[in-house]
């Protein structure tokens, strides 16, 4: 009786393991899948000021959502052919690995572990962030070394907390970390002076400072204690698709370098052979990527160049360009050559 039962379980397990490969992925590139589907599926943040949120008209808006639209414009020639899936921090990588989304653009920091351990590939960062400190001006502190003994508010379980501890330890400073599970609680407590200092990504500090009782009474220190390069991700091993997403990002950089804007892209006159290739007037740049020849033109027509995307989404929340400027102006945005 017992043996018979075991035997049946074994047969069942065997059968399942034999059948499973039949359903396995057919290993086509996501690029082809997106074309066949006629729609891009893009993972975004469910509510992050400036980057991803649901607009009043029911359409996903923000810096990250605009890059999703740019990819749809390049591949399908229509920025509206994109479906956004809001994701939380824990499920974002699973959604990418299982093919639920084609590309993940959700404030994700490029780190070695994520690149190597998770089945994901990064594309060029679209936003260089870094962790900083905000504190009341009245404390008259100008450098991180004077923060000894301060109570510092931070969100729990994030790399932010780890960076803080590492930095303070390496400086040999005593401090009192106060962890909050919720971002809103963190800033409310800071505003109520329950903690002296608050630390987070600088983009967040700037966005939240506007919201304090007296924004002018607070200062963000110049020091940046961590690098947070944020960019789109694709699934590991699909190089064709990764190339497409990467070059869409480069296209927005390139357009800003050469002052090609949403407004003038249609009528842009040039003898520069590289710009001609960029606009699809000569060469076979599109064919090489598996895209229409006017893909870059479509991207700029849809969302504009990098500077325009930035000004539309991040300037209103008070973010300065900082290092997110073209390399020609001393920033970090550097498009690879279009040839």
């Amino acid at each position, binding site marked *: 009786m017992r043996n018979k039962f075991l035997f049946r379980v074994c047969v069942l397990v065997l059968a399942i393991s034999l059948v*499973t490969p*039949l*359903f*396995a*992925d*057919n290993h086509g590139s996501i690029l082809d899948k997106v074309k066949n589907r006629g729609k891009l*599926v893009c993972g975004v*943040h*469910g*509510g*992050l*000021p*400036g980057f*991803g*949120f*649901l*607009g*009043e*008209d*029911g*359409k*996903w*808006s923000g810096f990250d959502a605009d890059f999703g639209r740019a990819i749809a414009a390049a591949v399908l020639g229509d920025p509206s052919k994109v*479906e*956004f*899936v*809001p*994701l*939380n921090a*824990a*499920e974002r990588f*699973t*959604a990418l*690995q*299982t*093919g*639920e989304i084609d590309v993940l653009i959700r404030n994700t920091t490029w780190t070695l572990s994520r690149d190597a351990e998770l089945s994901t590939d990064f594309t060029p960062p679209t936003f260089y962030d870094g962790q900083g400190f905000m504190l009341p001006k009245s404390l008259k502190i100008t450098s991180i070394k004077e923060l000894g003994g301060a109570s510092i508010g931070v969100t729990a379980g994030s790399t932010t907390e780890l960076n803080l501890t590492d930095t303070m330890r390496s400086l040999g400073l005593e401090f009192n970390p106060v962890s909050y599970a919720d971002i*809103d609680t963190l800033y409310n407590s800071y505003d109520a002076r329950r903690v002296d200092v608050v630390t987070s990504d600088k983009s967040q500090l700037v*966005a*939240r400072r*506007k*919201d304090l009782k007296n924004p002018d009474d607070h200062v963000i220190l110049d020091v940046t204690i961590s690098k947070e390069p944020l960019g789109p991700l694709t699934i590991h091993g699909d190089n064709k698709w990764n190339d497409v997403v990467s070059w869409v990002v480069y296209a927005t950089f390139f357009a800003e370098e050469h002052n090609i804007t949403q407004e003038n892209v249609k009528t842009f006159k040039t003898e520069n052979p590289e710009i001609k290739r960029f606009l699809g007037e000569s060469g076979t740049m599109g064919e090489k990527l598996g895209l229409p020849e006017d893909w870059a033109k479509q991207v700029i027509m849809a969302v504009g160049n990098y500077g325009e995307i930035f000004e539309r989404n991040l300037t*209103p*929340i008070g973010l300065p360009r900082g290092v997110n400027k073209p390399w020609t102006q001393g920033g970090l945005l550097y498009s690879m050559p279009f040839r």
Partner: protein
Amino acid sequence: MENTAITQEVKPPNTKKGPVKWLKDNLFNTWYNTILTCLGLAFLFFVFKGVFTWVFTQADWEVIPANLQIFSIGPYPLEQIWRVSTVIYGLAVLLGLSAGIWNGLTRQITVAIGCIGAIILLLPFHIPVREHALIATVILAVSFAIGRNKDNWKRWVVVGWVLSFPWTMMMLHGFGAGTVSTTMWGGLLLTLILAAVGIVACFPLGVLLALGRRSQLPAIRWVSTVYIETIRGVPLITLLFMGSILLPIFMPGDFQLDKVIRAMVALTLFSAAYMAENVRGGLQAIPSGQVEAAQAVGLTYPKTMLFIVLPQALRAVIPAIVGQFISLFKDTSLVSIVGLVDLLGVARSVLGNAEWIGLQPEVYLFVAAIYFVFCYAMSFVSQKIESDLGVGKH
């Protein structure tokens, strides 16, 4: 000196009535009650003063009307909104007919819903919203008039209610070019769908599990018991996370289970376990004589359960079952943590809009008010059902 005894006066009985007398008797009858009353009044005054000044002078309520569209339907595309209104009209027809055919509670509920439609009509919503409310209310009234005294239609209306469920889903999703994928479902619409699916699906599953746990067959009994105890032993949020993170990894290759469906499954499985225990409580209250009598007249097990035991058992546990439905309705808000934009998810997203940042109190109060309206309505209906069935009276 002898006459002094009879001059003692007796006061007439106090015949004063009215609020002053009531206050004197209840709030100021002793010195310590007077102090307590004054302290209480002072406390209430400061609380209400704070609340009222905030609500009427400091709060920025503009965030609510500006985002009313996404609060109600989330990212559902406006050009497909006719799908939602068609569903509402269909439900209005069914409701109207039912109210015409059945008297009593159904009619009261229908009248209440008709009043809500009329109120929406008068409130300063966008014109299209009011048009839809008007059409729905008219449809409700007309089908009520048609359905009166049409007793022979009963069967068809019941069939209609059963079919309304798949019809709603198909209508909202659509076919071909006009498909609205479930990732576009959101706001109150998604909350209501999740709650409705959970409530409708968990009830039969719960009854089966309750019967299974009391079964004579060890295999069924053990499976049911293990299921109930396992599910009750984990928080709902872990089930939702398992649905959204673990399940897709186990799925083979290209096969993807929809995110909304995963949440529906998790909610249903979770509530079914609790429902099973509620129903089992009712089953235990039925004296064994009932079952024995049913067997004696030759009823089979399904018939005994269906016609003798369950009607009595379920009637006894209506409050517990409705309590379960209410908590299921509120539990749907947890799906916002796994990235669905239900009512609470929309609230979070609105607060992520740079324009409305920092308006947490206004937004969350509004959402809380909506949840309260729905939960209280459910509770009210359950009280009505109880009094109609005479639960607790005989």
